[in-house]
């Protein structure tokens, strides 16, 4: 494999939320295949700054695939083509010499663009604040081992809890639904005895916040699951729906 490749970048540039935005083309010769995608963006930005131009704004922080901050739509795929990978963990060895790479922000009504590739994901916060927790105060919790939890269930709860809240599910969904994100949290807590007392109130409240924030409905196309960098299963959406149905029937509201 060649150690360097030449690529062209077609990047969405948008000055701020109210700007209309447009694509701009950048040549990137001599990109090391050992670079991560974001390191390549760093190299581009370094060049733009030296030329006195505005660098491309994008969100990123831990660069270890866990903080969920990075959020690029690369060649029509959230976080790029590689399965189970965030943009920061995507490396240039997966691209072809001479390729034109299209880079866009997450596109969803609930995620307005702040600038270029950075979007506002506050809508996710609203969903979590509506019920993504166990209502307990810091203090005198019982001993951790007083509550044995079946390993299989603990493991499945952990699978759900692996969600990094990046928003790739929303960006990949043709309806811009946040069902995978929301159901992962609901499922984690539903699988554990700690979450049981609020199980049904939680789904109702979170669903309401979800719709209010402007996310679309789920039509079970499964795009979210296949694009999720943490490979969260849509089985959690099914669990959410079951709980939601039960909650709607038994709710006295």
């Amino acid at each position, binding site marked *: 494999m060649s150690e360097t490749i030449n690529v062209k970048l077609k990047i969405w540039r948008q*000055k*701020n939320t109210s700007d209309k935005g447009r694509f701009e083309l950048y040549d990137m010769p001599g990109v*090391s295949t050992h*670079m*991560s995608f974001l390191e*390549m963006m*760093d190299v581009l930005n*370094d060049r*733009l*700054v*030296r030329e*006195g*131009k*505005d*660098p491309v704004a994008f*969100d990123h*922080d*831990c*660069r*270890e*695939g*866990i*903080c*969920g901050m990075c959020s690029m739509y690369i060649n029509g795929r959230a976080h790029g083509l*590689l399965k*189970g990978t965030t943009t920061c963990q*995507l*490396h240039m060895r997966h691209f072809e010499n001479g390729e034109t790479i299209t880079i866009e922000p997450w596109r969803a009504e609930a995620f307005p663009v*702040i*600038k270029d590739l*950075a979007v*506002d*994901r*506050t809508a*996710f*916060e609203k969903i979590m*604040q509506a019920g*993504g*927790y*166990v209502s*307990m105060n*810091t203090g005198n*919790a*019982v*001993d*951790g*081992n007083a*509550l*044995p*939890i079946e*390993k299989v269930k*603990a493991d499945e*709860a*952990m699978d759900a*809890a*692996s969600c990094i*809240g990046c928003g790739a599910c929303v960006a990949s969904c043709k309806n811009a639904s946040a069902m995978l994100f929301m159901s992962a949290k609901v499922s*984690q807590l539903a699988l*554990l005895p*700690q979450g049981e007392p609020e199980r049904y109130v939680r789904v109702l409240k979170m669903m309401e916040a979800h719709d209010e924030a402007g996310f679309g409905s789920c039509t079970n196309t499964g795009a979210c699951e296949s694009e999720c960098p943490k490979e969260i299963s849509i089985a959690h959406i099914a669990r959410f729906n079951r709980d939601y149905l039960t909650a709607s029937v038994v709710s006295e509201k």
Partner: protein
Amino acid sequence: MECTSQFLRQHPYKNKKNMSKLNSRIPDGPLEAKWTKYKSTVRLVNPANKRRIEVIVVGSGLAGASAAASLAELGYSVKCFCFQDSPRRAHSIAAQGGINAAKNYSNDGDSVFRLFYDTVKGGDYRAREANVYRLAEVSNAIIDQCVAQGVPFAREYGGLLDNRSFGGVQVSRTFYARGQTGQQLLLGAYSSLSRQIAKGNCQMYNRHEMLELVTIDGKARGIISRDLVSGEIQRHSAHAVILATGGYGNVFFLSTNAMGSNATAIWKAYKKGAFFGNPCFTQIHPTCIPVSGDYQSKLTLMSESLRNDGRVWVPKAVGDKRKPEDIPEEERDYYLERRYPSFGNLVPRDVASRAAKQVCDEGKGVGPSGLAVFLEFKDSIKRLGLDVIKERYGNLFEMYEKITGEDPYHTPMRIYPAVHYTMGGLWVDYNLMTTVPGLYALGECNFSDHGANRLGASALMQGLADGYFVIPYTIGDFLADEIRNPVPPTTHAEFDKAEKEVKDKIDRLMNIKGKQTVDDLHKKLGKVMWEYCGMGRNEPGLLKARTLIKEIKEEFWKDIRIPGSKDEFNTELEKAGRVADFIELGALMVEDALLRKESCGGHFREESQTEEGEAKRDDVNFSFVAAWEYAGDNSAPVLNKEELKFDVVHPTQRSYK
């Protein structure tokens, strides 16, 4: 000023003339009774008054989120700030391995005392006994708290919590959630915080950065922040300010910290009178993915837990460039097992890092740069089976493969030490209060519990201990005097002054219009720090670093270039402010390293080593915390010493052989 004199009457430690500048305020009594006694005698704020008291928390990692949530639950009015787009993204999220607690679920002889002892010894006897004992004491409650929040810790088939072991100890006391423990603990704290935000007890400011501390009559009374999206400069006042802003490893440019991790908040606090404790104490983590090129801006950690089942080695022969699988057993040097038979691959981080540097300096390093050693799992896979190794480390192996393109199940990982954690930080007393009354520092940003070296899985423990179980008690001691004072208006002259300073600095940065990028200067600083104030330090090198940093500072203020404007989302401007502070902090780290002529923990002064090349402490001359006091931009910082008294543990030469 009536409130000042009243304050001075009640807080004699504020009066610098009569008292030592440092009062650690450690409660009397035997070590194991101090915290219990303190909790039952500390002054309280009644619920009706709590509602009128406002507290600012800067940072939303384990320490910040747990503090903000717990204080809001108690009824205080909280404002919490983070520079990321959500509190859930703070860099605690990236902690992999685990969190320690003295539960003794493994029945292997663990106890609060042993966790305390291991931590003091692991820190090479440079931490305060009383604080560390308290940390060990509250460790068990943290696990209970997190379980109750729904943190999915790893469990055994019987449904009980599982433990594993970490470096520097001989018991299994580390709780974990796959290789994502930090993520799960942070999401737990974040969920509690989200609940308080929903209830209106905490107001969250995402994408906001603290740029100045505001003090009125000597007390911390607010902050100046910048809205990173609009560029707007804002004023926020409160009765007390808590900093939980993490470590300053990014002084080195390359580190395992997140790109945005910075020291600006604590540096501003330092310049407003908070003393800086042991700035040179930096942890270089032994197991990171080696540097691959100049374009690299961050290093990736491979969890220390890997050393449970991985064996570290280099070829015995200098310059042996064969593939690892072609090197027979007898030509390999498992140098940690050889040098430290009783701890083997699980020696503390500082020891493992130094040993890796030594073998690489001898020319036995592997990989293209020669700056790497092997970490191999072949034997464990044979012993335990591939499935067990996959279950334990699957996500770490995947991450390694994504970054390097190599499969660690079949070929050894290549690893090298990298800057990971800073034990130094703002000096705090037993209450976690800095030398500025009303200003607190929690988690990594204080100097408190880890001495000169932190043990694995103890950072998460400290962050959550400070936020959930310490500050909710200790802050009452200060706030009990504040119930009659209204929140100062943000129109106060001190706010005008602080805001002007912030705006002037931003204008100055924007107007440099030079030729170099902010990263150019940051890289220069990083190289100097790594070379002269990294794994090995000596006087000539440090003196050279002192001069070089001065030059870098001048160059920075003459020649950087920030595109765009200050009134927009401008990441270069954000970086510039942070790097300006890193440069000054780097200079202080060098001063501290120069002063401390002994070796201890992560601070290795080459002049002070044993015949076998181990760190040699000097308890006669250096058994103190160096607390540095800002004395102006053009004056040398003033050294204040807090003598360390060891009533229970007797410092000995640390040995892991």
